């Protein structure tokens, strides 16, 4: 104890502060040399250095013990929720989801762009074929209730109807707005541009006017089918 007292009486505050900086690795070369000279000459300084090192460990332990077991699992979601509340335009959407949606949109744009007419027509043909298959469902039993105004229930040629021949006109740039069947022709209108509606003609063999009228889909069928 006396030694410790003596040590403290001989160590100035400035020198003690320097010892802390030495332990922290924050001294100049000259200061380092000074501390190490003193250290080799005075064993109390060595003890003091060890004490500072122990104190650092204790302080780190004191701070980290309070936080090491705290559950921070929901922090990110909470942050993003707050950001979305405070600024709805903020970029909070997960890029995985965004990139999927954007990817699909980009693919469709690319497919239907005028720069790639062949692919556009091919894609349009596939789309019309899919629409026609859904509308006509030739030779297949429907599972819809009879009272439903489903297009499939009004298939003009339930057992023998065949889809054959396909002619496309124009290009596809938007979603289907109207589906009309008349005089053996299925007419699909795309509502991308009201001034120049996109039209796809699809001829169905065996179509009759009566059937075509019956096959007029209502809005609910159209939206569901597409």
């Amino acid at each position, binding site marked *: 104890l006396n030694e410790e007292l003596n040590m403290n009486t001989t160590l100035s505050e400035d020198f003690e502060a320097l010892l802390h900086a030495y332990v922290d690795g*924050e001294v100049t070369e000259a200061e380092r040399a000074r501390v190490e000279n003193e250290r080799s000459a005075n064993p109390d300084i060595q003890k003091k250095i060890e004490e500072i090192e*122990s*104190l650092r460990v204790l302080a780190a332990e004191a*701070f980290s013990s309070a936080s090491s077991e*705290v559950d921070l699992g929901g*922090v990110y979601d909470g942050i993003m929720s707050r*950001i979305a509340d405070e600024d709805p335009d903020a970029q909070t959407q997960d*890029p995985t989801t965004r990139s999927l949606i954007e990817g699909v949109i980009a693919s469709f744009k690319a497919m239907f762009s005028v720069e790639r007419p062949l692919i556009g027509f091919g894609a349009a043909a596939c789309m019309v074929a899919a629409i026609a298959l859904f509308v006509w469902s030739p030779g297949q039993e429907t599972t819809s209730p009879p009272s439903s105004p489903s297009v499939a229930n009004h298939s003009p040629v339930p057992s023998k109807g065949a889809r054959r021949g396909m002619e496309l006109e124009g290009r596809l740039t938007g979603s289907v707005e109207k589906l009309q069947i008349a005089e053996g022709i299925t007419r699909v209108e795309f509502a991308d541009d009201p001034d120049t509606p996109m039209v796809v003609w699809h001829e169905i063999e065996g179509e009759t006017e009566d059937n075509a009228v019956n096959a007029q889909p209502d809005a609910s069928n159209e939206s569901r089918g597409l």
Partner: protein
Amino acid sequence: VAANQAEERQARALKDKALIAGFVEGDTRAFRSLVEHYQRKVYTIAHGILRNHEDSMDVVQDVFVKVHRHLPKFKGDSSFYTWLYRIVVNLCIDRKRRAAKARMVDYDDTRAQTPDESRGATTLATTHLDGPARALDRKELRQQMNKALDMLSDSHRKILVLREIEGLSYEELADVLELAKGTVMSRLFHARQNFQKAFQSAQANG
């Protein structure tokens, strides 16, 4: 140890820079990475200053909401983590001011030591850390450490947590705490001394 910490911080700074660039370009995964890497550090600093779980959790959210808002304008003059820690410290100070809570004990940097205090401080490490620390019940030791932290002033807790947990250099401490480098050295020295005394007092009072 200091050299290793410096290397780790340098590597981390490079990684942060890449994540920030990703975030600015629209990759929210980059922001998520930043949050997930720093949220516990932010919590630890906030808790180190505020000493309250709920307040610290609020600060964690406040900090990252602020980071999200201002990150596109972050110039990168300093490293991201020093910028982040400055936000943490400032938000904690704001919160403390708003709450206007009385601090339990405020040890001033310039307070003179009495011989008794010096004697106690000197014997602490050898008497209470090496041997008995292992023998003490862990929970009891934790309580004593928490009491000791509660007894420190905000300014001492701030500098201690940033140095001992985050390993900031004196220059970074000066940057985050907006102090002169010489003041950092002096304040850290006094903060450790006071922590040592506070810990001893907590042990003496059971």
